[in-house]
């Protein structure tokens, strides 16, 4: 059976009672920790960004305003739940869950610590270790598009619709670069399972994928995952100066809270995924303390994850938002060719150094050709005139529209 990847389930049905109990406890602890982390993350983001912007930030509830999220949550629960009359009721109610559930499921594959031994059973500190491993991330990021997309469409309102169209285009574009960099990681690790990816990076900082793969895949992955999260500077989906609030404009009360929670949960999960794929997960220096050795990997994992969470907040405070066409250009013209070329070079070096250099030469040649193509492309005519007229009739003929808009200006 494939489930034998998890040592808990390797011995079959013997002693199911204890195993089931361990499984349930592991699930509950994981879920509870993630929920707690989300409330902390929201507080941390608000506090850190207010420090960066010379504001005070939340301060009313609890020490340093740490209970602010709880208060906000309670407030949102008791607010009136509005469903716009123009909306598609079923899809409108479905969408927040489509955003939240993938965020929770993705965290299940993150190895938080080493392996514990409880009552004679080896317990992985990881909710699930499926054989398809990291592909769960790709599948779930594919599903989470629907949350945003359907929310925007079902709202029956213009700005959310624009936002959802942007979101779907953006997420599909960046998924390619994301997938290719994951392939690079899988190539050196030799396995899809996140546990195997982490164990292959054990044995010191030089074995971490970020260094082993030469930093570039990590940078591409980080950019792509930030775009997938639609966090700043890639937050064209929620660009409040253009789109009011983006796809969640029409949402209120608990459904809005679900979107909000999903966004922060995704931020934490993706930070954890970055740590897992490129920074050795829970790997780190373990001091020789009896009975407490298992704690240190968890602490290392938390420290690394919090660092990346902080970086996201930092991005938000420091970087201006990309324009939509810049987001598309970066994804298709820079990240996808770069990740593809880097993957070929890494694959070549894994086979034989000579192949690696041949691949590097080929990639250089290809990038010259591509650069020339981009130059030719940028000198080309663009805009409406470069595209064939659509089949069928537009709502209003173009000259009529133009006359109307010119008339208004005068």
């Amino acid at each position: 059976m494939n489930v034998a990847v998890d040592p808990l389930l390797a011995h079959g049905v013997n002693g199911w009672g204890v195993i089931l109990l361990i499984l349930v406890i592991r699930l509950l602890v994981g879920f509870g920790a993630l929920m707690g982390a989300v409330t902390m993350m929201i507080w941390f983001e608000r506090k850190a960004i207010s420090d960066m912007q010379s504001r005070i930030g939340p301060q009313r509830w609890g020490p340093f305003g740490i209970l602010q999220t709880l208060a906000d949550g309670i407030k949102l629960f008791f607010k009136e739940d509005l469903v716009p009359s123009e909306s598609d009721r079923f899809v409108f109610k479905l969408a927040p869950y489509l955003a939240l559930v993938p965020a929770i499921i993705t965290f299940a594959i993150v190895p938080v610590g080493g392996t514990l031994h409880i009552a004679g059973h080896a317990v992985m500190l990881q909710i699930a270790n499926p054989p398809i491993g990291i592909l769960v991330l790709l599948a779930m990021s594919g599903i989470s598009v629907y949350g945003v997309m359907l929310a925007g469409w079902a709202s029956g309102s213009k700005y959310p619709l624009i936002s959802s169209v942007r979101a779907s285009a953006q997420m599909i574009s960046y998924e390619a670069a994301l997938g290719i960099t994951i392939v690079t990681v899988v190539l050196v690790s030799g396995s899809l399972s996140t546990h195997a990816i982490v164990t292959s990076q054990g044995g010191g900082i030089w074995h971490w994928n970020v260094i082993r793969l030469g930093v570039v895949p990590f940078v591409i992955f980080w950019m792509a995952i930030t775009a997938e999260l639609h966090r700043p500077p890639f937050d064209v989906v929620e660009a409040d100066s253009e789109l009011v609030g983006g796809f969640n404009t029409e949402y209120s009360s608990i459904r809005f809270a679900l979107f909000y929670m999903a966004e922060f949960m995704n931020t934490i999960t993706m930070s954890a995924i970055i740590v897992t794929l490129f920074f050795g997960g829970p790997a780190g220096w373990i001091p020789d303390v009896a009975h407490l050795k298992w704690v240190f990997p968890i602490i290392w994992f938390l420290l690394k994850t919090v660092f990346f969470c902080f970086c996201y907040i930092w991005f938000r405070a420091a970087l201006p938002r990309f324009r939509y066409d810049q987001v598309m250009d970066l994804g298709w013209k820079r990240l996808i060719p770069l990740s593809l070329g880097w993957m070929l070079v890494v694959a070549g070096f894994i086979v034989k150094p000579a192949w690696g250099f041949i691949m590097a030469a080929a990639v250089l040649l290809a990038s010259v050709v591509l650069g020339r193509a981009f130059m030719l492309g940028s000198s080309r005519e663009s805009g409406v005139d470069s595209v064939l007229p659509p089949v069928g009739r537009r709502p209003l003929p173009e000259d009529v529209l133009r006359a109307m808009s010119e008339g208004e200006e005068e």
Partner: protein
Amino acid sequence: MIAATYSIPAILVFATSALLILGGAIGVISVANPVHAAICLITTLFGVAVAFIAQQADFLAAVQIIVYAGAIVVLFLFVIMFLGVDQKFHVSAEPLVGQRAFAVAGVVVTVGGLITLMASSHWVSGATSVSGSPLDTGNGNVKQLGTAVFTTYLYAFEVTSALLIIAVVGAVLLARRERASTNEEVDA
């Protein structure tokens, strides 16, 4: 009687996936709103993924979700949103004359063929369709598939990818207009 050949969990999994597949598929053709139909299609794809996992084809299940649910249906929705869902189509009009009769004949032939196949062969045995060494080695599943695609079926695989590229380039060529032709149209 059935439980003699199937284990209870296997039946539950099969029933779930069958329900998802059939419910979704019926939804796709019976729902009036195209966006709802797309959501039903996603349900069907998930059902197929569950069926794949039950057959221990984990990689195919993941690819099913990533490619079909994660990309293709998103593109469907994208197009639907661009064109607008408010347009009402006249379902009573037949764009192809006689297509209904052909459709009924096709359904009869397909379902009849399936029933004959199932009755005459040993398809419904409760065992996974692939068994043996690749399934026992954990993620050998993926390795087996990858080896097959990049050695035995390399030619077919590369031809398929070339075909996809040709399709993309062709679409771009058809949709884009050359500068020269634009000028001619302006002059004329």
